[in-house]
């Protein structure tokens, strides 16, 4: 049987779809761990980035945190978390939260800064209070870039959760790490395909969410172009 046949055989084997070590359970583990990490990181990072952007203080920190985050290898963060918190789910969770924070801080800061000062002025001139300016004007305009940060972080987290199999945690990375260890290449390849598909699915789903989050008034071609430029020239759009 050729290699493709062996991979297909692995996918068709009912044993690989049952129990705690089966594909459905591992996929759920992977998604639950990633979702929880992104959620907790968002609860920490978004208020910080939005506050820095709103008050305009500490911008240097907000910009540089993702540069620093990029320089620290995720693999190293994970292993350091193991040294600090032992093996299993806890160090994986803490490492993933730590990795997810920087892009969200930077992008929400940039989103808030990119709000046209004239628009802010106009909102104040219309008699809006500070809270209303923040929640009804600045945040809706900043939302697409805030969501871009969440998306960058989420894709990173799904990718790094794969490495967490190395520190005795589950998720889809298990098939890859065990496949490597046992030199079971069909299992390794099947695991890699599932991880790739899951990452792309998360990326596409969040890209859709980002589009939905864009206020109708901003959905012109010029604004998308501007956003793309910001994401490209600024490190925040791209993180490892």
């Amino acid at each position: 049987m050729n290699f493709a046949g062996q991979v297909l055989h692995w996918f068709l084997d009912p044993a690989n779809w049952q129990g705690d070590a089966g594909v459905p359970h591992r996929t759920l583990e992977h998604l639950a761990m990633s979702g929880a990490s992104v959620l907790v990181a968002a609860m920490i990072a978004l208020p910080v980035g939005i506050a820095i952007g709103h008050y305009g203080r500490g911008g240097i920190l907000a910009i540089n945190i993702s540069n620093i985050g990029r320089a620290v290898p995720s693999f190293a963060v994970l292993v350091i978390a193991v040294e600090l918190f032992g093996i299993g789910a806890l160090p994986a969770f803490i490492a993933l939260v730590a990795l997810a924070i920087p892009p969200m801080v930077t992008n929400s800061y940039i989103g808030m800064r990119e709000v046209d000062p004239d628009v802010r002025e106009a909102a104040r001139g219309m008699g809006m209070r500070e809270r209303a300016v923040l929640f009804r004007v600045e945040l809706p305009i900043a939302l697409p870039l805030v969501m871009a940060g969440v998306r960058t972080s989420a894709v990173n987290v799904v990718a790094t959760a794969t490495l967490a199999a190395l520190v005795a945690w589950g998720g889809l990375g298990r098939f890859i790490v065990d496949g490597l260890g046992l030199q079971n290449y069909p299992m390794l390849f099947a695991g890699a395909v599932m991880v790739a598909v899951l990452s792309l699915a998360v990326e596409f789903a969040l890209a859709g969410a980002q589009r939905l989050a864009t206020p109708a008034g901003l959905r012109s071609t010029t604004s998308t172009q501007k956003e793309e430029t910001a994401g490209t020239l600024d490190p925040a759009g791209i993180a490892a």
Partner: protein
Amino acid sequence: MFASGVFGAVEDPWIRWSWVGGHLDVILAALGQHIQLTLIAVGLGLLIAVPLGLVAWRNSLVRGPIFSITGILYTIPSLALFSMLLPFTGLTVLTAEIGLVSYTLLILVRNIVVGLTSVPAEVREAARGMGYRPLGELVRIDLPLAIPAIMAGVRIATVTTIGLVTVTALIGEGGLGSLIYDGLLRDFKTPLVVGTVLSVLLAVMADLGLAGLQRLVTPWARTGRAA
């Protein structure tokens, strides 16, 4: 990692200088391999990204597909990409480099296109008025003006690659990542700390070095605050 000290075991410190002193050759070799893997990846990445970027810039029909394909390569997690190559290319440098180069493409191509697109139409108009032919205009006008954006891409790609090289430890390469992996496997903090610190330092130095290079090749941006 298992509650050291409970069984009367000696506490493993974050760094044991005697190990560092006795393993300088190993550390230097890892650092050298790390630099080599990064240079090859970013160099090959640029060789592929420049023509792709030029095509994507000139031809809006292929721009979408080029961004989509490089975007997909960028989204696939590194470990998954290495693992998909492994059955075919084995535990080799080739496997590592195919993966690493793939990751640089999106960053480089996007920045090349953004840089070229940002050249003001009047400037290109003026160049044509002065008699520049298309190739001369590209080489002497468009590309130099796109350098800040292109260099921003090279910096991000380089720093990202330095981080990703550590993951190649799992497929038998790794550079400084092999020290980190060694620390994990032997539950010994010193190589982990040495590998992490050197990797971060390497990324910071590379970023600063490239920023300096950018100043050097764009002397016109140094006067005034236009940039």
